[in-house]
């Protein structure tokens, strides 16, 4: 089902889109909060990574 091409449709689209943007970005930020725990898996040395060809 898609949004109807009316003013009501514009309002509905805007409300859903704006609200969902917050939800999705909040969800991504939650994932990023877990990122520091990745450092327990190990440490990557920049100097060893450089020098590829």
């Amino acid at each position: 089902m898609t949004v109807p091409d009316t003013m009501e449709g514009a309002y509905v689209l805007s409300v859903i889109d704006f609200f969902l943007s917050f939800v999705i970005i909040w969800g991504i930020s939650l994932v990023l909060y877990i990122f520091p725990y990745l450092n327990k898996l190990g440490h990557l040395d920049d100097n060893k990574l450089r020098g590829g060809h």
Partner: protein
Amino acid sequence: MFEQISSLMLNLAEQTGIAQLWWGNIVMIMVGAILIYLALSRRYEPFLLLGIGFSCIVANVPGSDLTQPGGLFYYAYKGVELVIIPPLIFLGVGAMTDFGPMIANPSLMILGAAAHLGIFIALIGAKALGFTLAEAGAIGIIGGADGPMAIFVTMKLAPHLLPQIAVAAYSYMALMPLIQPPIMKLLTSPAERQIVMTQGRTVSRLEKICFPFVIAIIVNLLLPPVAPLITMLMLGNMLREVLMVDRLASTAANDLMNVITITLTVAVGSTMEASKFLNIQTLEIVVLGLVAFMGGTASGVIGAKIMNWFSGGKINPLIGSAGIASVPIAARVSHVVGLQENPYNFLIMHAMGPNLAGVFGTAISGGIMLALIGIK
């Protein structure tokens, strides 16, 4: 014989561009000249405005085949029309972007959503003016201040509006240092503008390498319509962060980006032909684009004020306006306005968090829009 010569000379004259010139071409040539003036004299985004202005002028000199099928500018536009150029731009953007500030302060990501209210203000306004919902969505996305995303969404929703929307999006991005500061100062107090934020944590190499994989999977799972852009953004970022393919990262961030920028600006400017551009619809789109930018700036600042209130005064509201995408212009504006209040308050890295989040905010808003309107 004299009559024959006269007839041939007249025929020759009629084939020149001068015979086809009309006042609309003159107006658009002046518009192109103004864009070039802004680039050269005021240094407003010369990488964008020079190419757009120049090709606008050329497109309005009648008789040239550059913009006609088979012409050079025609094929440049094909790259936009076939949605090849916007993902390549995002490849370059990803290769030159350090997402560390965003990873270090995930809470500020929410400003990347807050600052996009302008998209929907413009969308509703466009619908009220009589545009279709798809056209209104394409116009609204100008407020995301993300050129490639604006082009991508417009080509899906309303390709016939690409010239106006692309020019509005890129011009307002270049004019952000003029548009945003008055709104930022209106909505904040001097005390708020002087808030010094604590430095974010250091983000490790492992985190930076994992970031593009995680984000590509999450965003593409949730919003397949914008997968081409986000995939290329994260690919470019991965090339940058693994460090061992520095040649590829350098090419994506520099040489490829330069080639694509030239192609894109030429393509956008070449669509500014007077007969297509000079109409009421263009004026409406230009005004709505400005409304979207201003609305987004205001909503971002207000969002940051709310966060500042909840955090007990730890967040400078000026960084809220950087939630509009347009990396790093919007972050730079926040930094400069902050410096005007306190010359020792360096907001740039704090503002980069919301600024980078704004890229995802625009992609997410655009992706949801495409899904709800029924475009794949």
